[in-house]
């Protein structure tokens, strides 16, 4: 009976603490005991590495603070209740109420206590923009014996470009329930006496995967709180300092992908055995590749489109001429003679297996010089290559013919494209197929079969933009398009201003439904996940980020705000990445 009342009292105490924590979360108050807790600052050197000595001191303090709970939690299973009162933790199987506590705790996990130093939202936003990529200091408020939280605080500063010397600083802190920490038990490694660890055991702890993942998760949380969508670097710094996973990633990076062959390489182009095709190919040296498509019919065969205008060395560094639609088409006759696209085989990298030209002035096909911006193998007729030019023309080649000239070309008519063709999509079956083409001026055309000529349907893509507080209808400046795998009547469009559009194909029209300011620069590519039931979409942009979107149909249809339906997760250089498959 004594044990029973003791247990009940312990549970009551636990509940009280959790309630207190929840209240603190609501009112943003500092957890009790945090103010009195020691603060350890881990200085970050300009080189970006965290001083290992400070890190070790930190670990020792961790151990000291955890000393009391260590004896209690030793032997407990690695669960969320690890740091609970001894009765509850040890008897997790025997005491049914321990399970009842879990929802409370996971509630805390889902929404950690967050408080920011800046209450004024505008001021906070301003500081966020100026925040440093490299933090100046990271500090922990270690938990007291009667506290359940670890406070993690980091301060960052940056020298803004304009003012040069001015330092902007911001700080935020997050209280992470220490029950999260899987390292709570690990910090008391065998051999540590009195809670103060020697250097080697502290080092061991820092090498542990659990500690690394806990720390990086906590740091990530703080960074997101402070910098919002800015790219976190702290996580990377910690991983550098602790050696956790950074080295592994480096090794994986070296072994994960390896070059096989390079086509049109200067070294590989031996002029002695040059065939006519190889000479033609050599003329394209220095011309940016605008598009690549693999054949699904002939393994290892691909077609590559080239911009006719050679990029200058400076231009190639800046990518000038590399962006489809931006390359200046040269109208000279020699450009018409040079192939616009080459067929390559992986087995024969030294010389192309075929060359495709835009045609010749005066030939049967309506001819207009330009750059080939977009090229695909026809999915239902694998011998046909479909291409789009910077002048808005569509061309079809038959690779069986051996001649490089197109077998069909679109006529220039009012319903056709004016700007560069930026995307080609195919629908239908082998018996009845349709080509959908998208151009930079925001026109979508449908072409029935492969005869081209005039489009069977044509529509201008428009979207509502917010402008000076009003809504304005404007043309979509399209930079790319792809079908939704889940719903072929939906299309995702990229805008050259960085917008992401969701459009609906209804009959012969294409209606833009949603516009999201996905990126703040040219949206260069979109890719819907190939599996039908994975609602993920990738976008790449000249703003230097690649974003992953959740395009769940349910969300888009039911939610009033598209922002709620599409969740962006950054990946890319210096940014963290979280994938969250559809929220339930």
């Amino acid at each position, binding site marked *: 009976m004594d044990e029973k009342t003791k247990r009940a009292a312990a549970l009551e105490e636990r509940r009280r603490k959790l309630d207190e924590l929840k209240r603190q979360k609501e009112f943003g108050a500092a957890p009790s005991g945090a103010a009195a807790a020691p603060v350890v600052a881990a200085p970050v050197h300009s080189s970006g590495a965290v001083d290992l000595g400070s890190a070790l001191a930190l670990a020792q303090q961790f151990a000291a603070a955890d000393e009391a709970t260590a004896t209690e939690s030793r032997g407990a299973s690695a669960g969320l209740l690890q740091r609970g009162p001894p009765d509850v933790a040890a008897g997790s199987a025997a005491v049914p109420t321990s399970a009842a506590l879990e929802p409370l705790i996971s509630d805390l996990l889902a929404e950690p206590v967050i408080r920011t130093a800046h209450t004024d939202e505008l001021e906070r936003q301003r500081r966020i923009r100026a925040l440093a990529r490299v933090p100046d200091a990271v500090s922990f408020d270690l938990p007291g014996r009667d506290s359940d939280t670890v406070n993690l605080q980091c301060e960052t500063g940056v020298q803004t470009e304009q003012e040069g010397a001015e330092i902007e600083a911001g700080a935020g802190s997050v209280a992470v329930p220490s029950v999260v920490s899987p390292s709570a038990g690990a910090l008391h490694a065998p051999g540590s006496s009195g809670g103060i660890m020697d250097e080697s055991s502290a080092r061991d702890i820092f090498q542990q995967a659990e500690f690394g993942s806990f720390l990086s998760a906590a740091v990530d949380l703080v960074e997101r709180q402070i910098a919002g969508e800015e790219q976190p670097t702290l996580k990377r710094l910690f991983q550098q300092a602790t050696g956790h996973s950074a080295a592994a990633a480096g090794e994986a*990076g070296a072994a994960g992908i390896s070059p096989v062959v*390079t086509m049109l390489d200067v070294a590989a182009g031996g002029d002695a055995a040059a065939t006519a095709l190889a000479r033609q190919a050599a003329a394209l040296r220095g011309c940016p*590749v605008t598009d*690549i498509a693999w054949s699904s019919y002939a393994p290892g065969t691909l077609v590559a489109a080239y911009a006719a205008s050679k990029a200058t060395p400076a231009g190639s560094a800046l990518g000038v001429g*590399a962006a489809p639609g931006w390359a200046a088409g040269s109208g000279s006759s020699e450009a018409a003679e040079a192939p616009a696209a080459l067929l390559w085989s992986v087995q024969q990298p030294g010389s192309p297996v075929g060359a495709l030209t835009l045609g010749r002035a005066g030939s049967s096909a309506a001819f207009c010089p330009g750059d080939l911006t977009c090229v695909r193998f026809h999915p239902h007729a694998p011998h046909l290559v479909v291409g789009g030019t910077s002048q808005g023309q569509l061309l079809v080649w038959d690779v069986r013919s051996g001649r490089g000239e197109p077998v069909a070309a679109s006529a220039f008519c009012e319903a056709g494209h004016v700007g560069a063709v930026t995307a080609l999509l195919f629908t239908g079956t082998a018996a009845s197929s349709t080509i959908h083409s998208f151009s930079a001026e925001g026109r979508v055309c449908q072409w029935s079969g492969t005869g081209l000529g005039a489009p069977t349907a044509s529509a201008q893509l428009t979207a509502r933009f917010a402008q000076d507080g009003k809504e304005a209808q404007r043309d979509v400046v399209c930079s790319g398009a792809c079908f939704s795998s889940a719903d072929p009547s939906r299309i995702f469009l990229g805008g050259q201003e960085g917008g992401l559009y969701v459009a609906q194909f209804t009959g012969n029209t294409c209606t833009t439904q949603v516009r999201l300011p996905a990126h703040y620069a040219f949206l260069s590519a979109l890719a819907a996940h190939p599996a039908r039931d994975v609602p993920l979409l990738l976008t790449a942009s000249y703003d230097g980020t690649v974003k*992953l979107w959740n395009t769940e149909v349910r969300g888009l249809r039911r939610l009033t705000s598209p922002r709620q339906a599409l969740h962006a997760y950054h*990946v890319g250089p*210096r940014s963290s990445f979280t994938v969250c498959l559809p929220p339930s």
Partner: protein
Amino acid sequence: METFDGPLDYSTDVVWSPSHPAVFASADLSGVVRLYHILRDTAHTAALHVLSEAPAAATTARLAATRLRFSPDGCFLAAGDASGRIHVLEPAAELVAPASRGEDSSHVAARWSRPDDI
């Protein structure tokens, strides 16, 4: 580590692997081709290759990548660059197809189906 904190570069293309549901590749104008595995430690790239004129020499100029395409079987990744070269890259086996057992399949197997293939 230079590759993780290089200059912020224009991303020019992004493609999903046709054979591995969790893998995608991105390219940027600094010539870096990255493979990501979205079910692993995603703060880092799963694999990385820098397009350069001579792969052996570290000092040669990088080539701006403009286009990326996976071969239909997912075994090769073609990367076009601003100098007209096409680099055919081969991802490691674990990035080409999910393992039959282990972390990959447990996360993905249930949701990974491609009715088009039949």
